Structure formats: structure tokens, C-alpha cells
């Protein structure tokens, strides 16, 4: 045993470990990101690397009669040209829930932009030019574009060979093979309840196809390895799910596909599905060279799935006193050409379709379609966004029908702890729906005519149309609108959701150091920051190193569904607790004879020391660890189990946790030109416990802005006649600039969820839900127009 010469007798003031949970600790990668040194996936470089390029279909639905790659292969600088026939393994498809997406088109394409061939060359331009020389003979096929054409007699069946593995292998509840998934929910007796209604309000709504538009393009580097495997450095949301889909298509066992997360330039759900992963690996394995692939923005719009556009019909009944009697709703989500995560999106849309309101008697149906439109899958809000847009419009109309204030009406019908969802599940943690509405309503309104200066002149920058100088205030009217939403946190419907963390504690240079190793994807949300904060809190050690995320450690699950702080945070906490027990046992063995408290007291780790719960210091942690092998633990964490929704009634304990946000939007509308300026978009959200308040507010503001985007500008436009995407560029697909985005004051509530680590709630998504309907409600109030479609376009406001 080493001589212990430094045993302070009491914990000095302020030596509690700084940078733990609840503090706005700054990002550890912030400095690298502001100096340009942080390596995003498109920045990777390898000696001798070549460039991959994808040839994509110009047609939305067509048969490939013949492909001739000879001219492309003959071009100088080209190393390989691959088509479907070159896929090495029997498994040629992949997919998150259903493996129905071909790695390369197999005789026919089902959407505009589907990958058909790959080229590897010495320069990206060489690869592009070679791809342009691939000759393809096409035969166009009839299009499936919406529910009517998908279910029409004689409609082309897009996936005739599909075997359903998404709903316990039971298919009878899917009435047509062009329906990916259907989820009905029936509870109570809607017909009987409707008889109690004094007003019945029906509405039909349409929600456009939104794009995640993360800024860092799909990109990565595949390096062939001597053992016949491949090392892939890539920006993704879930390394292990990628590997599960990649390896079979390469014909490799999973352990020969080694993945490391590279810098991720945003995700928002758009990196849940594979993009260039398989393609880069195929080219690397074929050429024996490191292959880098980087999409440009045009290709990025085809490289990832989008948010499901939706057509939604609601019927609500309400009594003269303002109580909702019942609801019927039907939500049709366009899943596009491949399934992606459509089944789960359908489940979310159905189960959250009543919003955060008490409605006991319901008849609900949500369906997801196969069409020849671009594939749709995960995006922030995941099925709850589309429903929220529609039910919140209904709430305003119901309130108007009974002559109530829209906020008071919502509060009267708001769910609270103990309320039931239409699935029968009781909400068993705080549900402060009325309170977050009260908070956004109580906030002082921004002053009227802010754009008007003292001399009667206008600062046009603050007016609708901005620097375009389209108005100096004439024809500008103001409106205020409210909305609130409910989002599930984590993976639902019985999914075995877990995350793994490995935590190591050792003495380095006489100081205790913690290393946290997980496969959790840091996509910008600040996951690595809170992982370090948790480790500091649990182990009382200031120095925490976050190891790069890779597949050498167990799966962390996806950075999506607002689950990563909950799940990987929970795993880090669990692993730290096990490390703490081991290090205390070690301390008792080494130093237990020095002080009776080693065996009699409750011991804590704080400020790099072993401390009794009374604050007495027993040892420096470094002395306990000195000369010992590292204490090293890898543990998984699971949230409480959920169960699938019944396929006929939709009943079941399907969700883990809920997240609630409310918005108040203040808008000014130029009614002559149909231009909207959002003046303020205030948010209140319950986060359970803010592990990092600065990051939490940043997440809420970012989500709010994405909700604002789809309210007034964002939509991927697909030509219904050809199925082609009309606006795959930032010139034509508009996301909010700093001029389009208003002040976003945020009010954070912390009502602990007793079931979650530290009481936290997933934060990332809820604000996206309610921002959109709040803006729509404000525009309706300003203009008096019904406005049933998002995004609102100038022609909707001017009637042209």
C-alpha cells in the first residue's frame, strides 16, 4: 500500500465538483468549431483517397430496360462503376423497420432521385462526368401520388414482394399493399358522445413535405481494411443501426464493418436512414482505396427522407360550456416510395392525435402510404407535428363556436397528471398544459408598430417583406395566436430501447480522470456536454474525457425521439454508480483501517475526494486509484418497457414519457402582398430537469424556428404530373434566415418526471410541434382567413 500523506480533514468550501448537471457548462467542442479545426464528415481526408458519386433517377417511376456503363468506365481517372448487378451479397435491400429500400435500383425506380449507379474517380468532377456518360434506357410507369391513386382499382403495387414485419407479422388490418401501416384507435363511444355536443366542428387540413435541411451534407469516408472489412467514418444518428443495415448488403459480418462517428453538421431525423454509407463501402471494397463521398445540396435533397406530408380530417364535438365531447379523426401520411420509419410515424400520429386534451370518446385512424413521391421518414416531431397543426386549428374553431377565449378553452380541456390518452395510457408524471399556456399568455405583448420610428418613418427591415421595401406599414395588420402540443419521448410500442455506456476511472499524473465511452451520436444537440456533466456529478471528478463514438462499445440507440439525454444519460449515470461502488470498495480495502467512517458512513465522491455524507474527507480519489488498474464498467440502460398498440383498438401502454410545449405567436401581415413577418414567438416548455440550461434553451429556440419555417415557407414541392421534385436547392427550398426569425423568449419549467433519470424530459422536439399552429393561428387572427394548409403562401393570403 502506498503511503497516504495527504488526508485533509474537511471538505473546503467550494470544492464540490464544478461543471455538473444543472449548470450551463460550455460545449467541449466549441473551440474547435469556432476555429474551423473540427472535422465534419465532409472534411475527412485520407492519403490516396478517391471520390464516389451517385447517379440518380430522373424519373419517379420507371423500369430500367438496359444500362450501359462502358463509356463511363473508359473515362480516364475512373476506378469503378457499379450497378445493381455488382451488389456482392444476396441481401440487396436495407431499411430501418422494413428492408424495402434497394441499395441500388433493381430494375425499376420508385422515386425521383433514387440511386441507380455509383462511380469512383480521382476527382469529384471526373466522377460526375463519368456518371453522366452512363447510358440508361428507361420505360416510364404510371404514378402513384396520393391516397386516391394508391388505392384505385388496378393501381400499380409498389412493393408486391413485401413481407410485413412491422406489426407482429399480422397484415390483415392493412387493407391494401400500398398502405405501409395503419393504426386505428377506438375508445369509448364516439357516436353516443356526439349526441351530447352542442356544436360539431369538422375541418380538413393539409401539411406540406418539410425537409430537415441540416447544413452539413451527407458525407463520409470508407477505408478498406486488410481483413476484408471496412472502416467507415460518417455522420449519422445511430452507428449500430447503420451497421446492422450496411453489413448484410456488403456480405460482411457486422464485426468487419467498423464505424466511427465523424463531425455531424445537424441531423433533425434526416440521418436516421442510410444515405451514402453502403455506397462508399461498396466502392472502397471494389477499388481497394479509401473512398470519400460528399453530396452537394441538390443531391442532399434526394439523399435523405423528409417529413411526411399529410392530409388530415377532424371532427370534434363541444358542449355549450366548452367541454369537448368526442372526436373522430383520420390522418393520411404520405410515406413515399420506401417504408423508412413510416410505421412508427403512423403510430405517433394516431396515439397523439387528440393532443394534450381530455377526449374520452374517440374514433381515430392513421395510415401511411407507399407512393412514388420522395421517401419520408423521421423528422423532429415525428408524426406529432402534423397532428398538432390540425388539432390546434380545431381548438381555435371550437373556442370560437362557444364564444370562449382560445387559451381558456384549451385550459378547460387540458390534460393533467392522471389523464388518459386515447390509447388508454395514463399520464403518470406532471403534465402542465394549462400552466405553460398561462405563462405564454401572461407575457407582455411586444409593442405595436415597432417598425415605426418617432418621425413617422418606417424601418422597413422590421416590416413584412423586409428590405424588399414592399410596404411602409400600409395594409399591415397584427394577429396573436396560441398553440400547445404533446410529444412522446423515446421509442414506443414495445421497442427494446436501450443505451450502453462505458465509464473508466483512473489516476493520470496524480489526478483522477474519467473517460466516458458511448456510441451516442453528438449531432449538435450537446450530448457530449451533458454526458460529461453527469460523470462529474456522479463521480465528483473535474476531468472528464469523452471518447469518440464508435462501434467498439455497445449501442447507444438513436440520437432521436428526444431520447439521448434520457437514455445515454441514464447509461452514463448507471455506469458511474457501478464505478463508484468499485472505487469505494477499493478504498475500503486500501485505506479502510485509517478511519472508521470507511465502513460505517455513507460515502460520496465530491471534488476529487472520498467524502462522508457529513462532509468529512476520507481520502483523495487519486490516492485510492494510485497504482491500481483503471476501474472500468460497461453497462446498458433501459427505460421502463412499453407495449405495442392493439392493432384494432390502439389500446396499450405505448409511450415512455411525454414532453409539452406551448407557443404564443405575434405576427404582422401585409394583406395586400400576402407577406408575413413573425414579430415574436414565445415558448414555454416543461423539461423536467434542465441538465444544461443554456443548451436546453438553444434546443427550444431551434425547434421553434423549424416550426416557424414550415408555417410560412418550407415545403418540398413535387410535381404531381411527373413526381419530380421542383425545388431541391436552398434557392427554392427556403429555410428561415435571421431576418425571418423573431425574438424567441423561452420560459423553462422543471417539473420532475419521477420515472426518468434526474427527473428530466426529452427536450428536442416539443417546441417544433406548437410553433407551426401558433403562427397559423396568429395569421388567421390577423386576416380572418380560414387557412387550412401549411406552409401559408402569399396566394393563400391574397386570394389570388
Amino acid at each position, binding site marked *: 500500500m502506498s503511503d497516504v500523506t495527504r488526508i485533509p480533514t474537511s471538505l473546503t468550501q467550494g470544492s464540490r465538483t464544478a461543471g455538473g448537471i444543472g449548470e*450551463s457548462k*460550455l*460545449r467541449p*467542442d*466549441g*473551440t474547435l*468549431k*469556432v*476555429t*474551423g*479545426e*473540427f*472535422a*465534419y464528415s*465532409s*472534411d475527412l*481526408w485520407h492519403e490516396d483517397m478517391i471520390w464516389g458519386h451517385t447517379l440518380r433517377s430522373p424519373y419517379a417511376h420507371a423500369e430500367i430496360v438496359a444500362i450501359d456503363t462502358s463509356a463511363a468506365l473508359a473515362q480516364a481517372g475512373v476506378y469503378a462503376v457499379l450497378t445493381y448487378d455488382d451488389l456482392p451479397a444476396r441481401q440487396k435491400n436495407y431499411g430501418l423497420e422494413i428492408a424495402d429500400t434497394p441499395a441500388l435500383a433493381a430494375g425499376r425506380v420508385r422515386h425521383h432521385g433514387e440511386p441507380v449507379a455509383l462511380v469512383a474517380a480521382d*476527382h469529384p*468532377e471526373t466522377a460526375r462526368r463519368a456518371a453522366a456518360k452512363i447510358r440508361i434506357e428507361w420505360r416510364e410507369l404510371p404514378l402513384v401520388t396520393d391516397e386516391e391513386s394508391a388505392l384505385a382499382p388496378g393501381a400499380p403495387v409498389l412493393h408486391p414482394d413485401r413481407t410485413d414485419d412491422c406489426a407482429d407479422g399480422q397484415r390483415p388490418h392493412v387493407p391494401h399493399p400500398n398502405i405501409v401501416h395503419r393504426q386505428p384507435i377506438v375508445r369509448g363511444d364516439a357516436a353516443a358522445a356526439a349526441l351530447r355536443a352542442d356544436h360539431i366542428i369538422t375541418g380538413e387540413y393539409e401539411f406540406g413535405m418539410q425537409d*430537415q*435541411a*441540416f*447544413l*452539413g*451534407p451527407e458525407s463520409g469516408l470508407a477505408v478498406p481494411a486488410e481483413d476484408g472489412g471496412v472502416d467507415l467514418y460518417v455522420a449519422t444518428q445511430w452507428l449500430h443501426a447503420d451497421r446492422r443495415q450496411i453489413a448484410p448488403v456488403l456480405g460482411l459480418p457486422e464485426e468487419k464493418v467498423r464505424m466511427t462517428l465523424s*463531425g*455531424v*453538421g*445537424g*441531423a*433533425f431525423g434526416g440521418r436516421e436512414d442510410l444515405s451514402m454509407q453502403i455506397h462508399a463501402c461498396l466502392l472502397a471494397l471494389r477499388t481497394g482505396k479509401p473512398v470519400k463521398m*460528399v453530396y*452537394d*445540396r*441538390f443531391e442532399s435533397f434526394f439523399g435523405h427522407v423528409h417529413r411526411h406530408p399529410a392530409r388530415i380530417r377532424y371532427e370534434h364535438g363541444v358542449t355549450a360550456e366548452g367541454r369537448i365531447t368526442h372526436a373522430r379523426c383520420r390522418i393520411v401520411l404520405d410515406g413515399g416510395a420506401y417504408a423508412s420509419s413510416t410505421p412508427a410515424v403512423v403510430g405517433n400520429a394516431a396515439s397523439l392525435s387528440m393532443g394534450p386534451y381530455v377526449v374520452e370518446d374517440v374514433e381515430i385512424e392513421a395510415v401511411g402510404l407507399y407512393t412514388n413521391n420522395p421517401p419520408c421518414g423521421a423528422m423532429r416531431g415525428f408524426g406529432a407535428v402534423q397532428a398538432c397543426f390540425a388539432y390546434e386549428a380545431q381548438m381555435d374553431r371550437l373556442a370560437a363556436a362557444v364564444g370562449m377565449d382560445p387559451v381558456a378553452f384549451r385550459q378547460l380541456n387540458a390534460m393533467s397528471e392522471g389523464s388518459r390518452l386515447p390509447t388508454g395510457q395514463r399520464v403518470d408524471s406532471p403534465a402542465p398544459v394549462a400552466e405553460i399556456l398561462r405563462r405564454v399568455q401572461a407575457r407582455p405583448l411586444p409593442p405595436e408598430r415597432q417598425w415605426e420610428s418617432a418621425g413617422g418613418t418606417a*424601418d422597413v*427591415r422590421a416590416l413584412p417583406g423586409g*428590405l424588399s421595401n414592399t410596404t411602409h406599414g400600409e395594409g399591415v395588420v397584427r394577429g396573436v395566436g396560441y398553440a400547445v402540443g404533446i410529444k412522446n419521448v423515446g421509442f414506443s410500442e414495445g421497442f427494446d430501447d436501450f443505451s450502453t455506456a462505458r465509464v473508466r476511472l483512473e489516476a493520470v499524473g496524480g489526478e483522477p480522470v474519467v473517460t466516458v465511452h458511448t456510441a451516442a451520436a453528438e*449531432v*449538435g*444537440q*450537446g450530448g457530449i456536454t451533458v454526458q460529461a456533466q453527469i460523470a462529474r456529478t456522479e463521480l465528483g471528478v473535474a476531468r472528464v474525457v469523452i471518447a469518440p463514438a464508435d462501434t467498439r462499445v455497445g449501442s447507444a440507440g438513436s440520437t432521436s425521439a428526444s431520447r439521448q439525454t434520457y437514455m445515454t444519460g441514464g447509461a452514463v449515470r448507471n455506469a458511474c454508480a457501478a464505478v463508484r461502488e468499485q472505487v469505494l470498495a477499493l478504498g475500503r480495502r486500501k485505506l479502510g483501517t485509517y478511519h472508521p467512517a470507511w465502513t460505517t458512513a455513507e460515502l460520496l465522491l465530491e471534488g476529487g475526494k472520498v467524502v462522508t455524507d457529513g462532509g468529512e474527507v476520507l481520502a483523495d480519489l487519486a490516492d485510492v486509484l494510485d497504482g491500481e488498474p483503471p476501474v472500468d464498467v460497461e453497462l446498458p440502460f433501459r427505460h421502463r418497457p412499453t407495449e405495442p398498440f392493439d392493432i384494432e383498438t390502439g389500446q396499450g401502454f405505448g409511450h415512455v414519457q411525454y414532453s409539452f410545449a406551448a407557443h404564443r405567436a405575434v405576427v404582422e401581415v401585409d394583406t395586400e402582398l400576402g407577406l408575413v413577418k413573425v414579430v415574436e414567438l414565445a415558448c414555454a416548455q416543461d423539461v423536467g430537469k434542465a441538465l444544461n440550461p443554456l*443548451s436546453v*434553451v*438553444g434546443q427550444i*429556440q*431551434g*425547434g421553434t*424556428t*423549424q416550426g416557424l419555417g414550415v408555417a410560412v415557407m418550407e415545403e418540398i414541392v413535387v410535381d404531381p404530373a411527373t413526381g419530380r421534385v421542383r425545388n431541391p*436547392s*436552398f*434557392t427554392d427550398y427556403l*429555410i428561415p*434566415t*435571421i*431576418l425571418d*426569425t423573431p*425574438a*424567441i423568449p423561452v420560459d423553462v419549467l422543471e417539473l420532475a418526471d419521477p420515472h426518468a433519470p434526474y427527473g428530466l424530459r426529452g427536450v428536442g422536439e416539443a417546441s417544433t410541434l406548437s410553433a407551426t399552429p401558433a403562427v397559423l393561428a396568429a395569421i388567421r387572427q390577423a386576416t380572418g382567413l380560414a387557412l387550412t394548409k401549411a406552409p401559408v403562401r402569399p396566394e393563400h393570403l391574397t386570394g389570388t
Partner: protein
Amino acid sequence: MRVTFTVNGREQQADDVWEGESLLYVLRERMGLPGSKNACEQGECGSCTVRLDGVPVCACLVAAGQAEGREVVTVEGLAEDGLSAVQQAFVDAGAVQCGFCTPGLLVAADDLLEHNPSPSDADIREGLSGNLCRCTGYEKILDAVRLAAARRGEGA
């Protein structure tokens, strides 16, 4: 062709540059300066903003040959002894999330503050309106520029 220009105060040279290559490509792939980002390569997002003879431009829209003999400043050139005031303010204000837009925003904000040391919020919004950010909702970016302006003011 061969292209020679000054980057962050140092003369740099690239050989075998294809005539169609952008300044962005040459900086990132030939000169080992990947700080300027390739988010759209359409001149729409501002992530590749650099200063060319002092004027902010989208490097993706500048042909590499146009930079011949000129001065380019990228995000890698902003820090001198430690982080610049703008860089430090972005870190401190929480204006960096995924960070992909950050290098372009920093170059644009640096230029803004050089010309307008105490900008109003409307000035900041106008000055940064060519730079898209998808993560932050811009509030903390405004905070960062206000903070940088205040700190530069104190230091002056």
C-alpha cells in the same frame, strides 16, 4: 493550372487546378483548410464565407483562378493570440450547436463589427442575413454578436 494567392497572411499555391474548381474546393481539398464549409455550394447558405481582399464572399461562387494574387482570409485566420473576440463570444453565448454554419457566420460577423462596431439588432440581422443556421434559431447568435461588440468596445 497553377493558382497562387495569400491565405491568412501566407502565400499558398495549388497545382493541377481544374479551371472549374471553386475557391472553396481549392481551400478545402488542396490547401488543407477545411474550415470554410460546403453546406450548399450554391451561394445560398453563407457557410463558406471568406474575405477576398477584405470583402466577404461565398467561396463556392468564386472560381479559384479569380483569387490569383489576392488576399483571402478564412475562419482559420481569425484567431491571433487565442480566440478572437467574436470566436470567444460564439462559444460563451452558446451560439454554436452543430457548428457547421459557424465559420461563415464568424467571418460575416467579424466583417460586420469591423464596419459597425456597435450594431443594433436590426443591423446584426441585416448583416448576417446571408448566413443560414438550422440549429439555433439565431437568438444565441444575436447574443454572441452583441457580446463580441461589447467586448471589442471595452478592449478598444
